[in-house]
């Protein structure tokens, strides 16, 4: 088993794990953070699939913008509850 294969395997496992955690987390803030983690891992996966263009877009939009939007929505929800 080469080092690259081990890295890919770990990456794939981490992606499935973070996706599952993001869906099953009982607290919204944890789910959002896991979603951002999933987006960043996804960007890494695209880079490993030699598609760095998509990786860049995924990191900026999937993890960055969507994550910020979700966190902002979470903050608004919190403020409304308080």
């Amino acid at each position: 088993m080469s080092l690259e294969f081990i890295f890919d395997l770990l990456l794939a496992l981490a992606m499935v794990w973070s996706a599952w955690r993001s869906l099953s987390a009982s607290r919204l803030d944890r789910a959002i953070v896991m979603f951002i983690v999933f987006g960043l891992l996804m960007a890494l996966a695209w880079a490993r699939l030699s598609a760095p263009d998509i990786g860049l877009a995924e990191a900026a939009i999937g993890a960055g913008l969507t994550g910020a939007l979700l966190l902002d929505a979470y903050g608004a929800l919190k403020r409304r509850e308080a």
Partner: protein
Amino acid sequence: MKRLLVVLGAVCFVVLLLGAMFDLAPASVQLHAAVAANLPASGVEHPVTAVLLNFRGYDTLLEIAVLLLAMIVILATGIDTAADVRPSVNPVLQALAKLAAPLMIMVAVYLLWAGAFRPGGAFQAGAVLAAAAVLLHLVELLPGWQSPSTRLRLGLAGGFLVFLAVGAGSLMRGALLEYPPEHAGRLILLVESGLTVSLGLILAGLFLLLSRDDGDGP
């Protein structure tokens, strides 16, 4: 029991997908070779940019049109002008954002320029610009868009209009979006610059127009 069934179903689906993946026939069309053969005529050196802005420019034109349409729909549904009161922001965050924003704009310009010969391009550059705007908005340095000015509206539509003008110009000369090879590089850079600004504003607009909440109102 229900959970077990769902997991079982998911596992069956994964096995099916894996089976289908190993059963795939080799691609019948070798697009890779076709792109590589025509790359010198495209005006750029990076195959992805060549496909997006030259060979399949029509797709990108429609893509920015769809994004602009989404923005127009958001504007059309009406922006409620309730003042957005946020808790006061930590001054350290503000100082950090002030440091980061110029760097992000520089990265965006670099990505735009680098798109011609390595991974990068208008979409990524626009996303970085939008992220800078969102960052500034979150630390209260950039107010939300209560009523977009004419200049802002022009910026939102600008990328699409530039692309459309280039398309119309090429239509006069022959086919839609068929650039003359000697000017292709410059035309692509022009279109990409317009796209970067517009994409940045549209993506930031999705945030700045939608993020105002009325939870603090009376």
